[in-house]
């Protein structure tokens, strides 16, 4: 262990914690000690952890604020679910079906990341943020008026005019995407194991990236763009690389999300700017640049509102108060100093103890 680099050691700790959590959770499920509520929440926790990892790459390492990651999640979710619905009859192996859906969803999210990235990465700061927000809203709006049906005489596609397509379910025709109703009757292919595997893969990818030469280039751009450019770093290439990977991971989260519920619609709560902001909350609360922190924050903030159900009407109010307090506790200079002082006094005490003994 001692020969390992500090960062590799840190990564191993992260993997270790995750593995431990996974094993403990599986034991609790298998022995029947986990409530239905907790079991049901495991996959959403994985979904938000994934998207938070993706966004952290963009915000923490690339240094660009994106308010449109729910849009990439949305693309991943719809493309993944669409693929599953298309292939449902032809491929019967669930794992294979999910894998294909995942690949399609991730590639499409990456493609959208690339397309959005071309204009977006020319902008800076809040202007970049608002353009990503705009893209997210455009994607949501278009999906709400998109109609695709599998008819006996081939596929039919319509935008805004769903009435133009006649679907007779009696003869095996079906809606794949039905406007605001979205995609229905999606098989439940997601589970906690798949979610954990995806998190491991995503962590592997981002750890590998940030430790590599490309990763150092990306961080150099974040810290000082002009200096990075002057030493010959190809700004556009590395920015795009980080952004596309970030979008792809969000897309993977979307695919997982889509296969967890039987219905998929693009509403302001699940794929609107509210969700993008929620994911940003995970990233900032967990610590920018800390993937482990993102996962922990996503876990806490997903479980918290459910754990507060006993408070009935006051649930969301208490949640908001806790959110504000956690932010102040983690970020306010006064609180940070106080924590430092406490830490120092604890360290002093322990070292003194050591001396006495």
């Amino acid at each position, binding site marked *: 262990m001692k020969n390992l680099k500090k960062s590799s050691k840190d990564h191993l700790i992260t993997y270790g914690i995750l593995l431990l959590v996974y094993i403990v959770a599986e034991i609790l499920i298998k022995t029947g000690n986990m409530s239905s509520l907790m079991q*049901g929440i495991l996959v959403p926790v994985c979904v938000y952890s994934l998207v938070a990892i993706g966004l952290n790459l963009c915000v923490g390492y690339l240094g660009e604020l994106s308010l449109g990651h729910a849009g990439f999640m949305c693309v991943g979710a719809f493309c993944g679910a669409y693929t599953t619905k298309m292939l449902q009859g032809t491929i019967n192996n669930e794992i294979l079906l999910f894998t294909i859906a995942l690949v399609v969803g991730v590639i499409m999210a990456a493609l959208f990341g690339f397309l959005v990235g071309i204009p977006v990465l020319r902008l800076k700061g809040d202007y970049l943020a608002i353009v990503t927000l705009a893209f997210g809203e455009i994607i949501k709006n278009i999906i709400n008026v998109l109609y695709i049906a599998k008819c006996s005489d081939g596929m039919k596609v319509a935008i805004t005019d769903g009435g133009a397509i006649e679907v007779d379910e009696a003869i095996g025709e079906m809606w794949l995407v039905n406007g605001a109703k979205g995609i229905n009757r999606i098989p439940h292919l997601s589970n906690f194991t798949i979610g954990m595997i995806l998190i491991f893969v995503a962590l592997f990818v981002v750890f590998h990236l940030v430790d590599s030469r490309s990763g150092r280039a990306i961080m150099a751009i974040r810290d000082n763009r002009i200096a990075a450019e002057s030493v010959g770093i190809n700004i556009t290439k590395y920015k795009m690389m980080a952004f596309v990977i970030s979008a792809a991971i969000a897309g993977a989260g979307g695919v997982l999300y889509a296969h967890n519920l039987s219905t998929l619609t693009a509403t302001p709560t*699940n794929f*609107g700017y509210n969700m993008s902001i929620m994911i940003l909350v995970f990233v900032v609360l967990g610590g920018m640049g800390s993937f482990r922190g993102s996962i922990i924050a996503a876990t806490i903030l997903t479980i918290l509102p459910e754990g507060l159900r006993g408070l009935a009407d006051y649930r969301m109010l208490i949640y908001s108060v806790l959110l504000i307090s956690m932010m102040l506790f983690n970020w306010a200079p006064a609180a940070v100093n106080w924590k430092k002082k406490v830490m120092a006094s604890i360290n002093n005490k322990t070292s003194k103890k050591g001396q006495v003994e």
Partner: protein
Amino acid sequence: MKSLKKLLSVALVGVMCVSVLAGCDSNTASGQASAGAATETFKIGGIGPITGGAAIYGTAVMNGAQIAVDEINAAGGINGYQIEYKFEDDTHDAEKSVNAYNSLKDWGMQALVGTVTTTPCIAVADYTAQDGMLEITPSASSTDVIVNDNVFQVCFTDPNQGTASAQYIGEGNLATKVAVIYDSSDVYSSGIEATFVKEAENQNFEVVAVEAFTADSKTDFSTQLQKAQSAGADLVFLPFYYQEAAIVLKQAKDMDYAPVFFGVDGMDGILTLEGFDTTLAEGVILLTPFAADAKDEATQKFVATYQEKYNEIPNQFAADAYDAVYAVKAALEAANATPSQTAQEIGNLAIPAMTTITVNGITGEMTWQATGEVSKTPKAVVIKDGVYVAMD
């Protein structure tokens, strides 16, 4: 810096553990409660949004069902057993709704009144089907909700409402040119719009404009109204809820456009909107199964109790929820269910029983088909001098 980070992560992990433990605790506690109380009471759960933008519908359902539960309990319960009723928030989101369902399952729920809104209902219906639980939704009106055998609706389906509205306008010769304004981001609204436009082809009027709005732009309707006016529409069909309809009516008045406005069951509630100038709604026609100022005794009693308890006049959602609880009661009685049975055992008996029962509720006399669809007759009412008056 390093120790700081460590402390931070330790603190976060700590909070996580606490919250996980809290989750476990509440589980074990409720598990004991259900084991102890299982022989005495039926546990009926409800799910709907009581926070978030759709909170108004969920709150109405929560309160309406509560009144029915109180009444039933006071009258001796179901098969002699009292009802325990618990309502969980889903913020009108499919994922949160499934969480709410799981939380109620941990509590020991035996039948579900819910969920209130369509998309979450489709997601939850999938789980209730797996668990074989009886689910009666007061207000999720899409046909996708009832694809599973265990789900029944108290409200009309969207296609029914669209078709019925078009037929009513056509047969009553209410208009020659009709404009439609609908919420393209909403399942309920776009569902009714689609079938209305389709049925209109068979009727003696022409649809001259179909204009949409979305959840993100539902404050300004001046453009949609202007287009309807320019197209010469003498009737505007408004298949959405009364909050938006109130703005439409106000803006139409501001631009001196006075066609006939025609609404569906979501329009009910407009007269009791706090602060609303009811003269704006003069002449509005709507198809609704429930009218808060109906003269029958059951409705009057319900409205009086609701007003006394919640200081509001109940809308259609509250009424549907009230009837849904009575439907559960009728089904459990027909199935001779007892609280000691599991949700699945009750479901096995009560689900087939649903097609045999008749509930005479405040939204009309209801029977159910095996598909889960309700049969009842909508009433067309017109608003005159601030009250509903039957059209026929």
